[in-house]
């Protein structure tokens, strides 16, 4: 059966993608604006990138954010993978319903609630707010996303592969590390990247749980944006967009290549 | 002088029903020089075809031969690149699928999963804006016709394959279309159910007097059900005939090989004598004698002789001195099928013949064994000459 795109389909795709990408494109273009006024084109210039790298507060915030994102994404990947295994391989254990609820709830719950509740918790146990509280908060939120990503892969996983490994004499733990883990690795990597991005991006939860010396990039950007537009923020945004685009594109290319390789090996 | 057609009464055709033989009969469906291209590929190539009212018509061919495209053009899902299609004298050009008095039973059945059996059957009637009680009455009638009254409230996911097939049929029949199109109607059923359903479809068609156009790649299905069969290959119709005509008088080697089993012996025409053709072939010492008077051939022409396996006789003793069409070889394989036994005989030329023998008695031990030297003969009128 061949599906054919009607004029309506093409138009809605073009308009839809224009809507999605035009704002980002304009942001990138105006980061090369010579004028200080963000919305008036004053010629091409890269001066704001220079200004950005001289802005120590912003650079410091970027460094903090990066550390938090790496640490919380790593923790979340381990926890989320364990949770996914628990949900797919452990049948009906006691409190499974509560567990599933706790995995799904943080994903749909408004960030203001998650942020507030974690803050009140940290205050109650007397933990000083700062780098670690943000890290713990981000780990909690992002592990749920990792769980869902890994779980969906595990559900389509062919159990007979594991059974074959055990039949050939591999004990369960060896089977897990030599068969299961390599096969679900792409979903774990995807989960890690998702967790990393979410942490990098978060403003609300970080704002609640931040403390002295732990100002993240979104918090810094937010406070600057509230004061007005600044071409420096455009430059910073462009760099972030560039990194993300590069990451997504290279991940796609890599996974395409490994797919091609496995197909070639199959022949 | 050509003799009257030899096979006019052969095959399981309703004897009195043959509108295609009547020069005054008006066809219900007419394809006139229809061509359909998809990009560079030609799916249907300058094809003309008439289908008459009340016919059970089969489009038969291997996959990719264009039969489904032909049917989809009739339903209105594809449009001819050239040529025109008329229904009861009216051109169908520009008529969308939902305005055509033609309904289709899809190969996948395409039952709406979010509607019950009765809602599915009522769907087409609702589109016509019929009053509620009339719809209910018609749905009931259709449910009775396909014997599904008890499953009216079920959803398609709760039905077996055979039941789904019946719902799809009832849904397509509910609007009493002028033409019912059936795309591989029995393809998804297992062998036993398929056979039963073939006869049921014939009964329903007979009862409603509707025109059925069936697309199938299964020659047995086409042979059983159809009044006429159009065999298609590469976007063209190779032959249109009754099942008997297709089987006993195939026009080309492709048809002979596609419909049923056949032995092909290649050779060259020597000449004609008393209305019988003599053909020299490497498979036999003496020239073969073939009674196929309708062919127009010239001496030296390369031809293929087609003989059905059941029309050959196999024996261990040499035939009498006056015998014609004698081939010698040794038994290569024996396949016992219960009702039939299949012998594969290797000729001196290296060609392998397939000969079948009906097992008429339970206790006669086969006198023919592996590696036996055997003689295979066939009557002059058992064979068909196909010009190469």
């Amino acid at each position, binding site marked *: 059966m061949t599906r054919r795109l009607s004029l309506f389909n093409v138009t809605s795709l073009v308009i839809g993608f224009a809507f999605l990408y035009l704002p980002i494109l304009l942001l990138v273009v105006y980061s090369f604006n010579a004028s200080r006024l963000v919305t008036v084109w004053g010629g091409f210039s890269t001066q704001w990138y220079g200004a950005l790298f001289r802005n120590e507060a912003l650079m410091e915030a970027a460094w903090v954010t990066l550390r938090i994102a790496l640490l919380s994404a790593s923790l979340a990947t381990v926890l989320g993978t364990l949770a996914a295994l628990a949900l797919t391989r452990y049948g009906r254990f006691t409190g499974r319903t509560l567990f599933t609820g706790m995995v799904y709830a943080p994903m*749909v719950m*408004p960030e203001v609630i998650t942020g507030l509740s974690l803050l009140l918790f940290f205050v109650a146990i007397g933990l000083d707010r700062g780098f670690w509280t943000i890290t713990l908060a981000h780990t909690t939120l992002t592990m749920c996303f990792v769980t869902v990503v890994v779980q969906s892969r595990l559900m389509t996983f062919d159990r007979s592969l594991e059974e074959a490994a055990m039949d050939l004499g591999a004990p369960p733990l060896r089977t897990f590390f030599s068969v299961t883990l390599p096969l679900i690795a792409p979903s774990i990597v995807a989960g890690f990247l998702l967790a990393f991005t979410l942490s990098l991006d978060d403003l609300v939860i970080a704002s609640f749980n931040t403390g002295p010396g732990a100002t993240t990039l979104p918090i810094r950007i937010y406070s600057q*944006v509230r004061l007005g537009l600044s071409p420096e923020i455009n430059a910073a945004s462009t760099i972030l967009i560039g990194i993300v685009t590069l990451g997504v594109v290279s991940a796609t290319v890599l996974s395409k290549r490994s797919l091609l390789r496995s197909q070639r090996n199959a022949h | 002088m050509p003799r009257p057609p030899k096979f006019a009464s052969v095959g399981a055709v309703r004897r009195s029903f043959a509108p295609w033989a009547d020069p005054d009969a008006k066809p219900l469906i007419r394809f006139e020089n229809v061509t359909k291209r998809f990009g560079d590929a030609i799916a249907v190539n300058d094809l003309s075809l008439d289908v008459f009212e009340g016919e059970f018509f089969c489009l038969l061919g291997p996959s990719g031969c264009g039969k489904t495209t032909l049917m989809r053009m009739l339903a209105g899902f594809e449009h001819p690149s050239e040529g025109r299609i008329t229904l009861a004298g009216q051109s169908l050009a520009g008529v969308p699928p939902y305005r055509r008095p033609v309904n289709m039973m*899809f190969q996948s059945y395409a039952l*709406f999963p979010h509607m019950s059996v009765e809602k599915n059957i009522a769907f087409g009637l609702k589109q016509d804006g019929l009053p509620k009680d009339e719809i209910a009455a018609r749905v009931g009638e259709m449910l009775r016709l396909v014997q599904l009254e008890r499953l009216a409230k079920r959803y398609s996911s709760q039905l077996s394959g055979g039941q789904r097939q019946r719902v799809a049929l009832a849904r397509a029949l509910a609007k009493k279309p002028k033409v019912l199109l059936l795309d591989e109607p029995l393809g998804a059923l297992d062998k036993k159910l398929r056979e039963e359903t073939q006869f049921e479809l014939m009964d329903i068609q007979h009862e409603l007097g509707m025109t059925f156009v069936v697309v199938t790649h299964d020659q047995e299905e086409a042979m059983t059900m159809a009044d006429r069969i159009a065999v298609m290959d590469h976007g063209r119709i190779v032959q249109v005939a009754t099942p008997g005509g297709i089987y006993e008088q195939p026009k080309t080697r492709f048809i002979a090989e596609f419909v049923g089993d056949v032995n092909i012996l290649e050779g060259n025409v020597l000449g004609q004598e008393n209305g019988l053709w003599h053909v020299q072939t490497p498979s036999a010492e003496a020239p073969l004698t073939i009674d196929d008077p309708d062919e127009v051939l010239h001496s030296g022409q390369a031809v293929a002789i087609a003989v059905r396996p059941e029309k050959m006789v196999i024996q261990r003793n040499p035939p009498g001195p006056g015998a014609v069409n004698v081939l010698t070889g040794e038994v290569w394989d024996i396949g016992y099928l219960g009702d039939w036994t299949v012998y594969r005989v290797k000729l001196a030329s290296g060609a392998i013949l397939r000969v079948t023998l009906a097992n008429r008695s339970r206790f006669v031990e086969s006198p023919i064994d592996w590696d036996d030297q055997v003689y295979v003969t066939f009557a002059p009128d058992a064979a068909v000459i196909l010009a190469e």
Partner: protein
Amino acid sequence: MTRRPFARRLTDGLVPVIPYLWLGIFFLVPFLIVLKISLSDPAVAQPPYKPVFELSDIVSFFQGLDLENFEVLAGDDLYLSATLSSVRIAALSTVLLLLVGFPIAYGIARAPARHRPLLVALVILPFWTSFLIRIYAWIAILKPEGLLNQALTELGVITDPVHILNTETAVYIGIVYAYLPFMVLPLYASLEKMDDTLLEAALDLGSTPWRAFWTITVPLSMPGIIAGSLLCFIPAVGEFVIPDLLGGSETLMIGRQLWSEFFSNRDWPLASAVAILLLIILVAPIVVYRDVEARRVETQR
């Protein structure tokens, strides 16, 4: 069943226990604390609420709890109208998202199979770039002297700049823009699975394309419509960044209210009460979402 070695049973048992404990400590307990604090009194002390957490004295613990904060919420029109306008804005945004998202998802689902992964990736890609940045980008577009007004003036559509930034319209644009992937992806997932022959069957049975869309396509994509709507509605109700950056001072939303109670008024108990209120509003849709999700997982097996 053979007895497995003790060490293996231990590692086996830890797999569910570790994430379970983590979520219990960092999700469930904080949640109960919010509930408790919403029932306590504000204090000027640091932390700015009166600790009523004396386990030795359970009587005084319960005496310390009251519904005072909720009485404040009920007594102040501000919270009622913030709640109502949050729900209204989220609901209208969800409808707009459906209107914008459906044609896109439909277009992707009808595209040739080899192009679909790319189109889906293009829908997801903006989601990977910062939410804050994407909202920020709209400020420059919607400002009175911004790019939209410049373009419209150039084209001669308008002579005076239209005021969109700091209005509710800007909030709708922002929500639709930010949540579009969440609407398109579930819609696409259900549209892509749909069998084309069902539409052909409907046409064959006399249904016009428009009717076939409503009687076949829409009902069959209902799981996607529900999932997409909930995925957008639920976070939109509690949205803070979009109304704060794009909305005007008159754009009331409950998430913003919580933020200002917390950061500006430093009234933690009242902020907690607002959080509980917000959660109560969302319980119904979250339960529905869980149900839909569970059914989706079920059918995937």
